């Protein structure tokens, strides 16, 4: 997805002369083309994340539409206050492209995971949090960020994620129905979406599958209708169960008086010491295809009871 996002930005930069790309010493093999094509609109600001964000704010204050590329801890955690004060408080067109969502980089160690980023990012009013599930969504997320000129955070895994949509996606600004169904609705965001798709393969029961690429500032107004025939909502995310989509939905369900049960699947709120690869971690935390399938099946059993 990172290649899709960068390709989309590179392509747009031909026409949009205000696009500027900043990296904090990341992007080997990813940003090469942009750098080659637009050297005057590219800067590597090195291993200095606070300066990187404030400097990017300055670029935006002087007219640029800035895209900052790095792994998520270095666009959001190390420089949270710069993101808060300089980008969001000042409403500047700067998009943070954070790589390595969830436990993508397992077993690099907890320092390199981003399992609380949605929770952190959604505390900032006006920051558009985008978490595409596949390259089709990623392209639209990049296009949205280019056009909207709002502070944004695009949460990406790495590269080579398969498509989950069989047809063209029109918009990422509201939840997208990926598969129609009823009784149980699975809401998800990000690269873990592929696990959800695999979980329902060959399943007799027909849960509704919905991708939620825009986690904040999005349009949830159609969701109530979509959940009309739903008894249980299951959220799936490669993120802590606290603070992410599960929490967003918990708030939304209560505030909208929707009568559904909520089951949150995600990474347990803990520091991760286990040494496992990405798939191993997903299995461990119950967000692999088989674990999601088990959760869906058990909810259908409950749904069927009188």
């Amino acid at each position, binding site marked *: 997805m990172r290649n899709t996002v960068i390709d989309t930005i590179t392509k747009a930069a031909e026409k949009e002369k205000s696009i500027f790309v900043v990296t904090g010493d990341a992007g080997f093999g990813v940003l090469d083309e942009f750098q080659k094509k637009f050297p*005057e609109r590219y*800067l590597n*600001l*090195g291993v*200095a994340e*606070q*300066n990187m964000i*404030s*400097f*990017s*704010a*300055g*670029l*935006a*204050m*002087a*007219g*640029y539409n800035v895209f900052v590329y790095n792994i998520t801890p270095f666009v959001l955690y190390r420089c949270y*206050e*710069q993101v808060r*004060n*300089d980008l969001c*408080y*000042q409403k500047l067109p700067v998009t943070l492209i954070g790589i390595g969502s969830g436990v993508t980089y397992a077993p690099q160690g907890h320092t390199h995971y981003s399992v609380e980023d949605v929770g952190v990012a959604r505390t900032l009013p006006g920051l558009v949090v985008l978490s595409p599930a596949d390259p089709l969504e990623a392209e639209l997320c990049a296009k949205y960020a280019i056009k909207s000129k709002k502070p944004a955070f695009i949460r990406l895994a790495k590269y080579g994620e398969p498509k989950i949509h069989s047809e063209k996606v029109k918009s990422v600004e509201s939840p997208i129905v990926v598969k129609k169904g009823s009784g149980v609705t699975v809401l998800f965001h990000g690269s873990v979406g592929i696990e959800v798709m695999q979980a329902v393969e060959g399943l007799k029961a027909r849960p509704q599958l919905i991708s939620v690429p825009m986690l904040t500032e999005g349009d949830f107004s159609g969701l109530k209708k979509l959940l009309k025939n739903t008894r249980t909502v299951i959220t799936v995310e490669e993120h802590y169960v606290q603070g992410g989509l599960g929490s967003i939905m918990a708030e939304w369900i209560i505030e909208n008086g929707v009568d559904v049960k909520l089951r949150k699947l995600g990474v347990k709120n803990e520091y991760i010491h286990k040494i496992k690869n990405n798939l191993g971690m997903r299995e461990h935390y119950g967000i692999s295809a088989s674990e999601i399938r088990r959760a869906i099946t058990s909810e259908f059993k409950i749904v069927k009871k009188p």
Partner: protein
Amino acid sequence: MDNLESEEKLISTKAREARRLMIEIANKSKSAHIGSSLSCVDMITTLYFYKLRIDPKDWKNRDIFILSKGHSAMALYANLTLRGFISKPDLFQYLQNNGKLPAHLDRFTNKAIEASVGSLGHGFNMGLGMAYVFKQKGENRNVYSVIGDGESQEGSIWEGALFAPKLGIDNFTVLLDYNNLQGYGRPTEICHYEPVRAKWEAFGWQVYEVGGHDYRQLIGALDAPSNGKPKIIIAKTIKGKGVSFMENEMKWHYFIVTDEFKKQALEELAAE
């Protein structure tokens, strides 16, 4: 009277007026940071009444000033009032309920406030970004920023300091308000602060040292060549400068200008 002398005279008059306004609003709002504001008001006044090109009719080509030590906002507000960007009634609404101006800078309150700044070690770096764009686009625009000596303990200042010379931004000038008094101590006692000049030189900056309340020296350093580098003017200042009982006293980082203090201060700052 030579040209420079008349410039000095103007700055001196305006700085005195600014100080009086600052005392008035500090008293009315019962706010802190009058000492920090009096420390840097001379350099800010020198910028607004000598150096900055800020013509409302040519707004898109204006120079940029970012007060990175945002807690000295009173010194900026007073100058913007004297330059006609903030009305006097609005200035006197400083910190008032439903007023116009907060204690720390919010760029949406006035078009002449370039950056929202309150936390230290932000404005300086935003200024670097802006200076880079102007330089790269060949625009003849300069960026000035005032940082504090306490602020210079922020890592972000040194992150920016490390990159700026590489970016060729000789249109960027920072003034260091070196009063050697911060919130709860003296920089030179809290950390290994000196040698300041050698540090900035080692980082590749063009360094000038001046008396921070000496207008002629400030003008000289502002006009001095950058030699293709970003410039820092290390301005030795006195916290609380201009009001005898506030000078070089840490407590005036926090103390409130009571009616009695105000009376004494305004007597000292009476127009010449």
